[in-house]
């Protein structure tokens, strides 16, 4: 059927609502395209892997988060939590940056199931033969 599996490698370094949605939409779409999807969460991005995490808009836009979420719902856009669960169900590989975990005092038990703790080397090893690499 499909050719050799393509690889997509994504780094996520932020935790705002917009930056949270993008990797989830790209990861689910990538899996649907029969690609292997690897997402490395670092710095603030790591928070997106926390159980029950609700991303908000950033900075001055923060008070408008509720409005944005409502608008997305009206447009039938899947929520962050739904998309994140889809990613894991479909087999996207999620990595938590070990250094960021130490820095931010986050333990593996704080994270959703199915996340692997890894360092930059592991991610770059994967990225070296990925056809698509993205930084969010």
């Amino acid at each position, binding site marked *: *059927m*499909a*050719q050799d599996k393509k690889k997509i490698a994504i780094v996520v370094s932020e935790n705002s609502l917009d930056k949270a949605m993008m990797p989830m*939409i790209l990861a*689910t*779409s990538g*899996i*649907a*395209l*029969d690609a292997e999807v690897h997402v490395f969460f670092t710095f603030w991005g790591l928070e997106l892997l926390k159980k029950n995490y609700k991303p908000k808009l950033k900075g001055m836009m923060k008070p408008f988060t509720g409005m944005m979420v409502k608008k997305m719902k009206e*447009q*039938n*856009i*899947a929520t962050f939590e739904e*998309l994140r669960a*889809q990613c894991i169900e*479909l087999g996207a590989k999620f990595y938590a940056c070990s250094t960021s975990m130490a820095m931010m005092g986050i333990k593996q038990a704080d994270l959703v199931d199915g996340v692997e703790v890894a360092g930059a080397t592991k991610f770059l090893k994967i990225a070296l033969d990925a056809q698509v690499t993205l930084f969010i």
Partner: protein
Amino acid sequence: MQADKTLDTRGMACPMPIIKTKKAMDELKDGEVLLVIADDPGAKEDFPAWCEQTGNKLVSIEEKDDDIYIYIKKGE
């Protein structure tokens, strides 16, 4: 065109129509046809790209009013 299964994704936004399609296709046998009904305007470009990349055959894609009817044959 006769479909073996129909998937109505109307009202869903990207990426859900494609995710649901992938899941529905996984349950079909080679040669069977899935009809996807979509109203996300991105579907017109997304579905041909998805079929080409995944080795499924895009049999036809047509617009009826505001809906897009996409017939996909599994495998080759």
